[in-house]
């Protein structure tokens, strides 16, 4: 059930009416509805894995209570390790087992394992829940419905954002009151997410998929253009999904974690990762990088570098079982080294003071991203290096064919609109927060313009969200 499908629209309409019109005022019934809706949403893809979700939720619920109530520190640690072993064990089995088998034993008779949708996302939720209880940052859920709903909350179940228990669980406990302004803002954010996904990401995908499938027969210029488009496609796809997820949660009265903060306006790599997939980088910073940097603190800049390299390699591995992702993460870690040496890792650059320098930094950063995202996109490291090699050829200046010209033109126009709107709105949560436009007809014109743009120029082939496979 894709967020962009008509079946989801029907599902959510019914869900919304039940949530606010039938069960309004009774938070437990609303939570039961959230839980049932989430399991239905998940079962639509494959009902077998609902049992894994329920089992994981049940175990972590009991472990959370156990960790909280136990006074003995060793016993608390043991319970935590059981939880970590279960979460990471499932991830290792479903996501990485075949990869390790093939990489280290060369055994190609791998098991036929289906990756449960969203496992990386909900596992990280349960892990942060246990870790936060262990560190006494949160108290365990007393109501199982609250915890099960927290783990399986459908707007962010499949592709995040990865919500922390401290943010989402209190909202599940407290009484929800319908807020018209929040709901309207949610609708606007959904519209902006659809625009990014359907017009930009899917139209770009038509071209990039074709180029990466036949890159060896196409000129380097086509590859370079595909790299440019793919960088934007990943952003439009994933941030579009996150916008829709946040918008849906807003419609239900929830405020969930922001996942993107206009990453293409980043001034350097550290700034970029503070703005890109914020819920994952935040999670990794709190539970991996910070403990590691404390552990290595005696080694100064070397220790910091090591902590960052481990952290980013793990972020790479989180994305999937492929050497490309591992190398992607490691490479991003390496890009931090100049900042560590100069001692500017945590310094935030002021955007407004030197506009030309700001623009140059952003352009340079974008160029760097184009080259690193090539590894992210490639099927193998060999393909990635082959693409890099191909870029240094005379065909870089050759013309290349574009089959879907209108779609491409639409995508490029939409990209310009997106960059312009997001730059103008960079201090807002999303680009469609346009309350500053005083005249209501002008605002309506903007909304209708976007709807028409989506209807007229949507891509013919709707692709799955890129982050579904993670």
């Amino acid at each position, binding site marked *: 059930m894709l967020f962009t499908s008509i079946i989801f629209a029907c599902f959510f309409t019914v869900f919304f009416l039940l949530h606010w019109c039938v069960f309004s005022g009774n938070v437990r019934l609303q939570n039961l509805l959230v839980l049932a809706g989430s399991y239905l949403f998940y079962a639509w893809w494959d009902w077998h894995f609902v049992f894994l979700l329920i089992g994981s939720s049940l175990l972590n619920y009991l472990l959370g209570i156990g960790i909280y109530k136990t006074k003995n520190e060793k016993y608390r640690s043991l319970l935590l390790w059981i939880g970590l072993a279960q979460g990471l064990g499932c991830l290792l089995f479903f996501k990485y087992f075949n990869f390790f088998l093939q990489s280290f034993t060369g055994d190609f008779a791998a098991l036929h394992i289906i990756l449960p949708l969203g496992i990386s996302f909900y596992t990280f939720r349960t892990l942060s829940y246990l870790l936060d209880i262990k560190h006494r940052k949160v108290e365990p859920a007393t109501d199982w419905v609250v915890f099960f709903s927290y783990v399986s909350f459908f707007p962010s179940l499949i592709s995040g954002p990865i919500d922390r228990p401290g943010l989402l669980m209190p909202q599940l406990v407290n009484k929800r009151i*319908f807020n018209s302004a929040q709901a309207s803002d949610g609708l606007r954010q959904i519209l902006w997410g659809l625009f990014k996904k359907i017009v930009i990401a899917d139209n770009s995908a038509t071209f990039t998929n074709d180029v990466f499938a036949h890159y060896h027969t196409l000129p380097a210029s086509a590859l370079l253009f595909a790299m440019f488009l793919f960088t934007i496609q990943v952003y439009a796809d994933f941030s579009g999904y996150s916008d829709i997820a946040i918008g849906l949660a807003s419609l239900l009265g929830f405020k969930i974690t922001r996942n993107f903060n206009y990453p293409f306006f980043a001034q350097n790599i550290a700034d970029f990762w503070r703005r890109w997939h914020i819920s994952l980088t935040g999670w990794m910073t709190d539970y991996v990088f910070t403990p590691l940097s404390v552990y290595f603190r005696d080694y100064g800049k070397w220790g910091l570098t090591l902590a960052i390299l481990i952290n980013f390699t793990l972020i790479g591995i989180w994305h999937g079982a492929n050497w490309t992702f591992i190398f992607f993460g490691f490479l991003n870690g390496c890009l931090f080294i100049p900042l560590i040496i100069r001692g500017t890792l945590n310094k935030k650059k002021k955007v407004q003071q030197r506009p030309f320098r700001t623009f140059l930094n952003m352009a340079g950063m974008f160029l760097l991203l184009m080259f690193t995202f090539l590894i992210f996109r490639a099927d193998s490291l060999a393909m990635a290096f082959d693409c890099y090699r191909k870029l240094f050829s005379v065909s870089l200046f050759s013309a290349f064919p574009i089959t879907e010209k209108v779609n491409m033109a639409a995508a490029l126009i939409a990209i310009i609109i997106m960059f312009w709107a997001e730059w103008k709105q960079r201090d807002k949560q999303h680009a469609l927060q346009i309350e500053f436009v005083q005249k209501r007809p002008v605002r309506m014109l903007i909304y209708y313009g976007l709807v028409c743009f989506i209807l007229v120029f949507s891509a013919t082939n709707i692709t799955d969200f890129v982050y579904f496979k993670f």
Partner: protein
Amino acid sequence: MTKPVNKFLLKALLFALPVFVLFELMFRLGLWPVITNSGLFDAKVRHIKQQHVGDIKLMAIGSSITLYELKSDLVKQNFDIPYYNFASWGIQVSDMRVVLNDYVNEYHPKYVIMCATLGEFRGAANESYLNYFNTPRFIRNNLPEYFYFKNYNSIHQLIWRKYFEYPINFDRWGGAPLTIKRKDINRKMWDAHDVFPTRYTQANYIALDSIARFLSAKGVKFIFAQAPIKKSYANTPLYQQRLQAHFDKCRQIIESHGGIYLNYYSTAVFTDSLFVDQYHLQDAGARIFTTEVIGNLKSIIK
């Protein structure tokens, strides 16, 4: 229902209403209904409904080759039996398996004829056909808009198809003429030399096998006619070899399930002047082709 929720729902409905009305107006009064991503299948479905096609004896199925090259008037002159050409542009053999599964049960044919060339074995299956046939009949018949959303045909593509692509004028039996003046022939398409086989070819062979088995099980006689190809296509020994391998493969599949395999690949009869591109015949060429097919069918169709 609380007052703020009511107000919000009303505002959302009022916002959506003009979009919905505009879309319905365009859909019902302006543009053709869109059912799949194929440029023509949607139009063919509409034609089938308009012609009130009931039970038929001879069913033609396939892509543009069957659509353009099997001349309905000649078929009707020679066989006084219920006949309809269900072919639509761009369809692959894998898609035909999906289409036939439904059409055979609905129209109960005794004979199914498929005129095909290499093009039907080159591409991937299109999920839209499956979407269409998996949808409840009521929605299929009454709410074709559903497919617009489900398959995301963007409006600019509908406009492009309707006003800028080669117009399709069906005859009463679902066939269509193809006549392009020599001076108007697209040089690029004329000189094109499609790669064959592709990575989808094997899947299409499997689908052909499945079709032949399915029709045999249903007691329907399956006739596969290999359509002519322009002489210049097989201009190297390698391509001649590949073409022969394709013919042999199709023959083996069809005949193993009791079907009839006919091959009209003849560069002597179908000279280049009869083509509009590497596969498609001009109307004059199509009449020669249909006449030859009918000659063979006379001993098969009782």
